[in-house]
């Protein structure tokens, strides 16, 4: 059972119709970069950093669901697991921040390799259930292992000096570091999606038996996509651990896995920018709701239901759909 999410909702690969809108695209990219650079002067920097971390997390998740058609319901394991490793490396071993994050990312990649190898043995709904169950195992490990600090998590993680030069305790320095991490991750995803590898992934998403009959070893492609996605989720989680100087159980719960699904669904599965928009929306909503008495899960659940029933393209997907319809 291959995923038909794509064919039902998404357009096939975005057509690169010549350089009709190349100018607009470059202008938009520059505008986006400008906003990202100016953001910490307009908004609370920690908020923007949180958005960036979750945006990278959602983009990593979207690489699987949007481009390979695999719904992982356990991505919190990579996000939160890497956060623990990064926090431990920075606090207990006193490693340099970039190295700590790299260690976290590597641990997520390793977990992704193991989980992926197990999960790709089944398809569709079973894939989702297996990833969910495995991530729950990570949750229990995080609760019980000695180095994770149980219910308290790892607190007071030092941000340290990047490469021994830049003091990350200064909010602006930290912000630009997070922005650089996000852009690097995003560029990697962009490159992956537009590479021959990405095209094979899309083929698998559309029709796996056909891809197999064309001679592709789809299992390998799926596993590689899974490991890549897990690593990037780990990169996001490790960075977040330094931003908040904290690694906690919240990051490994299945509710967190659900939240990243929501970010992607809301922003638009299979679009590059969708998860970024969705992450911004969900994080902002969480901040807003924290100040009211409304129960957050109810609101998030309601958005889920509305998205699935009425709004399956997501925000960016809907906009792209309307633009395309107008231009044809």
């Amino acid at each position, binding site marked *: 059972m291959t995923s038909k999410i794509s064919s039902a909702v998404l357009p096939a690969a975005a057509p690169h119709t010549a350089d009709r809108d190349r100018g607009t695209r470059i202008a938009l990219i520059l505008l986006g970069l400008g906003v990202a650079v100016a953001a910490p002067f307009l908004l609370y920097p920690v908020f923007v950093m949180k958005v960036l971390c979750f945006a990278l997390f959602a983009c990593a998740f979207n690489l699987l669901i949007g481009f390979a058609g695999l719904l992982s319901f356990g991505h919190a394991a990579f996000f939160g697991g890497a956060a623990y490793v990064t926090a431990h490396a920075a606090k207990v071993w006193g490693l340099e921040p970039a190295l700590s994050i790299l260690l976290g990312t590597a641990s997520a990649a390793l977990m992704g390799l193991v989980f992926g190898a197990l999960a790709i043995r089944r398809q569709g709904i079973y894939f989702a259930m297996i990833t969910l169950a495995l991530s729950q*195992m990570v949750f229990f490990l995080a609760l019980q292992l000695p180095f994770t600090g149980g219910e308290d998590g790892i607190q007071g993680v030092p941000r340290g000096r990047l490469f021994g030069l830049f003091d990350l305790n200064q909010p602006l320095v930290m912000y630009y570091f997070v922005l650089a991490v996000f852009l690097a991750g995003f560029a990697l995803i962009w490159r992956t999606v537009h590479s021959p590898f990405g095209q094979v992934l899309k083929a698998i998403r559309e029709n796996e038996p056909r891809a197999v009959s064309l001679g592709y070893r789809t299992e390998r492609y799926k596993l590689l996509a899974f490991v890549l996605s897990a690593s990037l989720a780990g990169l996001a989680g490790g960075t977040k651990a330094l931003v908040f100087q904290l690694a906690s159980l919240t990051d490994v719960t299945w509710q967190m896995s659900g939240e990243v699904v929501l970010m992607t669904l809301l922003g638009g599965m299979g679009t590059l920018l969708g998860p970024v928009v969705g992450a911004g929306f969900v994080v902002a909503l969480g901040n807003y709701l924290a100040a009211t008495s409304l*129960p957050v899960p109810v609101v998030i659940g*309601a958005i889920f239901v509305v998205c699935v029933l009425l709004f399956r393209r997501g925000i960016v997907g809907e906009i792209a759909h309307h633009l395309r319809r107008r231009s044809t």
Partner: protein
Amino acid sequence: MVTLFGIPTQALFGQLLLGLINGSFYALLSLGLAVIFGMLNVINFAHGALYMVGAFAAWLLMQHFGIGYWPALLLAPLLVGLFGVVLEKTMLSRLYKLDHLYGLLLTFGVALILEGAFRHWYGASGQPYPIPDALRGGQNLGFMFLPNYRGWVIVASLITCLGTWYAIERTRLGAYLRAATENPTLVQAFGINVPVMVTLTYGFGVALAGLAGVLAAPIYQVNPLMGSNLIVVVFAVVVIGGMGSILGAIVTGLGLGLLEGLAKVVYPEASNIVVFVVMAIVLLIKPAGLFGRER
């Protein structure tokens, strides 16, 4: 003290009994999931939340209407079933033509709403629910003490599971159901109202979850979060058993409950993850699940 394999028998049988009770709930819940999946091709993420709603329905019936355990055993599953029917009619039925994953996402949203709402109203702490008078006390079996209520839970869930198995595998209605699972269009052509059957199947499946909730209320407290971690374990149970067979769901549920109980005695730290480890092993050896077919 009598010991077996170096473990005091009291502790061993006590934990095995607990495991058997957990296993009964795994069996009831995974049975409901399997029935729903067979007919709707939807994995009902809201199953754990509806189990919680079943328990709360019993508690609320007692608090506000003075309705006791025995009527609640019937009423609460009925209410949960009705909720399921409405949910299927208004929301789930719109998604059948799309990828199955949307059903999972929708029911995930419903689970969040239900759990969030109950938590908002009743807080995260548990509400006690008394054991009915007729089932107080216990039996001394010589090697262990068996509280009556726990024995009743095991018997009741076994009867329900086997009854469901009989209804699906051995009755005419069950035959229609199985036929409609294989080929809905053809069955519809024979003049059987398949959409109504689908709706009722969903209602029945979630009613089983509601029943499990009522049975669980006196053992665990009635807690808004009682279903949220359970559902993940039940998913693992379903992956291990495969959803092809009803008996498979029952046997796997009970077996894993026992295994978990055993782990609590032998190596308590691993008891939370033993089900997931078994799942990983089964996936390596027999990816379709112990009783499953590749679909």
